[in-house]
């Protein structure tokens, strides 16, 4: 039972990597389907629609980032893993913004990317604008990331 803290902290890392990853997979997946459709009609648009498809992929990376920082902080990646129950729970909660923010924002961003891909298919010259719409959605993933990062570093600074 003395390792419950570690368990909770690890849960947090796992959630942020897994949920944000799922969100990105769904987002990139639906955008990819739209992209394939455009490329069948006009193969020249490949590089543009590829960029748009990849936009919802960042949440997965942010999730990984949070998971990795957590793992380093709790000493799973080497060093001593001395995590109290309190600390473990705090780490778990710190990971939640990224986990859920990532999950839902990636899916929403994927849908937005689908529309942006449609825009590029009809008007390839408007690529610059098409790229901005999905990037707006990403702001909220970034805010989640920010809070998660600050919380994790904050928790380790508490010295509980």
């Amino acid at each position: 039972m003395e390792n419950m803290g570690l368990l909770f902290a690890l849960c947090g890392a796992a959630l942020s990597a897994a949920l944000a990853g799922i969100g990105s997979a769904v987002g990139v997946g639906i955008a990819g389907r739209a992209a394939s459709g455009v490329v069948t009609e006009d193969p020249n648009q490949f590089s543009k629609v590829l960029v748009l498809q990849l936009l919802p992929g960042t949440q997965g990376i942010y999730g990984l980032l949070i998971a990795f920082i957590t793992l380093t902080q709790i000493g799973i990646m080497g060093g001593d893993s001395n995590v109290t129950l309190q600390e473990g729970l705090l780490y778990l909660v710190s990971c939640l913004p990224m986990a859920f923010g990532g999950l839902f924002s990636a899916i929403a961003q994927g849908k937005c990317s689908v529309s942006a891909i449609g825009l590029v298919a009809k008007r390839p010259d408007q690529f610059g604008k098409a790229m901005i719409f999905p990037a707006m959605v990403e702001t909220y993933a970034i805010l989640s990331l920010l809070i998660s990062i600050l919380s994790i570093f904050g928790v380790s600074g508490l010295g509980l």
Partner: protein
Amino acid sequence: MAKVPMKRIFICGLKRDRKQILEKLQMEGMVQIENSGQPDEYLKTMDVMPQKLLFDKNSNVAEQALGILTRYAPEKKSLLDSFEDAKELGRSEYDAKVASAEDYLAMAEKIISLEKEIRDKEDQLPKLESRIDGLKPWVSMDLPLNYKGTDMTEAFIGSLPYETEASKLRSVIEELAAKRADENETGKSETGKNGENLETAAASGDTGAEGGMSIPAVVDVISSSPEMSCVFILSLKKDSELMRGILKELGFSIPKSTSAKHVPREEIKKLLHKKEKLTSEIAGLRTQIADFAANREELKFASDYYAMRAEKYSVLYGIPQSESAFFIEGYVPAAYGEALCDKLRSSFDVEVELSEPGAEEDVPVLLRNGAFSEPVETVVESYSLPGKQEIDPSRITSIFYYIFFGMMLSDAGYGILLTLGTAYVMLRVKNMKPGMKKMMELFFYGGISTIIWGLAFGSFFGNAVNVIAATFFGRPDITLSPLWFEPMSEPMRFLVFAFACGIVHILTGLGIKLYQCIKQGDYVSAFCDSVLWFMFVGGGIVYLLSMPMVTDMLGLGFSIGHPASDIAAWIAIVGCIGVVLTGGRESKNWFKRLLKGAYAAYGITGYLSDILSYSRLLALGLATGVIAQVFNQMGSMLGATWYGVLIFIIIFLIGHILNIGINVLGAYVHTNRLQFVEFFGKFYDGGGRSFEPFTEKTKYFKVKEDK
């Protein structure tokens, strides 16, 4: 900040020079032709649509032929070639080729017709194959499928949709024959008694087997499978009606290829031969098309040439002309105006006038900046070109662009790769597409900035230096120490710095707004929309910095002292009141005006979210470093063995290539976003249209004047 100044140009020439003058203008490629006048009874436009359509069609034919050619004889292209711009072609060479453009077109048509022939032949193949397949079950029969029988007999050749044997089939046929004979007899006797058919029909079913009368026939099953049996039945002519009925009941069907005159074996052989011939013909046609690969350049020329002529005719279409003169209006960059006038005057009897465009005119926009800011023009263009009264923001944007890009990518190793990679491409490909070249330059400067930030944050392929030293050389003490600070250990510091960058960026945007308003002479807007906001936002920020709560949270080592904070607070309040009073100044009604003003002041929350948005500098900067560390750590897991080194190299290469790709994309997208949303939102509306001169719009060749 340079929008190229434009002049209006007005050309009046003689009709006989029309063609030459237009060609001259097209060759110079410096005039955007726009005729404002409507045709009236003196000035008429020429209907040249049919010619234009014809040239368009010719150009398409050449394009189509090129497409076919690429299918049968793909062009060898390296990755670098795809960056190349159109090839240059000397004027004399061009003239020589123009003479044989018709021949090139004929060649293109020949290619298209060859391709059609191939397709026709390919369409025949499946038909042949299905005929061969249909004949295969009959291969052991020694009679042709259309054999009808002798004088006395009739042959039934066909298939049954189930498996059977000769003896079984014979007995079934005999059984049915007997039954029918029975039926016939009873049927005949009962023709008189109408109305009772039903009853007797039912009765005859019981007595059917009694007849025992056989029908003389040869029954042979040629082949049999669960789906189909091929049968040959020979019966006497007199029985043929009866036999036909019986077979119909059994599900007998006549094969499609009954027309075959020969024994099936022979027939198959003939068909196979035919198929072979077709295939070899197709191969022959294919090589014929592929042989045209040597003429690819000529086809490209034809495509360009006709596209160019179509372009000329589309301009000609809009030119008003009287009986002996014609008029062209348009825009020309001021710097070229005089030179162009001189050129035209010296070669033709022509009147050329230059004039300043009117204030209300929607003059087309061409941007020109120095080498450093030029790449960012593509970013500005992809947002929108500057409108009538606006300045070109490329130069000021470029400074922030490179800084933010570097902060987001923030790895010296990646920066070096990006800089060297783009430099290599730019050196190797001399004649690059202009858009592509700007993109390369953008990443080149971005790469340099990335190197600087990477060194400041101590990141070189993540923590590769430390990992390699610790794992393979047992020296964990060696690290690349950051010139400034390490973001991973001091994220708060990075965050504060990111916000500071954001504040500078946003206030710069407000400053440009101020400059623009003053330049336009709109001092009211300058004061209300810019100065008051400066006071409101700037005062607010300074006041926030005087609150211990904020400075503690941000980990700042200082806080604003007492008198200064009071002054800042008062400035912010004055600014706020000013915004409330003036924000809705276009409304006459005072009440409405105050409400609108209050709503405008609420826009301060927008500034807050704008500044928070710069936290992406931290997020993306950290993401690069952390993911790089993940890969380094994964690679070093097997320790300092020979396979450990091998695995490390593999993971290092794959991981970092992946990371560069993802993060360059992220840095590019989010730098754009910061410019478009947070920065341009403060002062820039865009809406200008781009300068599109009448020129030789070509895809493959650029005609160059001979020196």
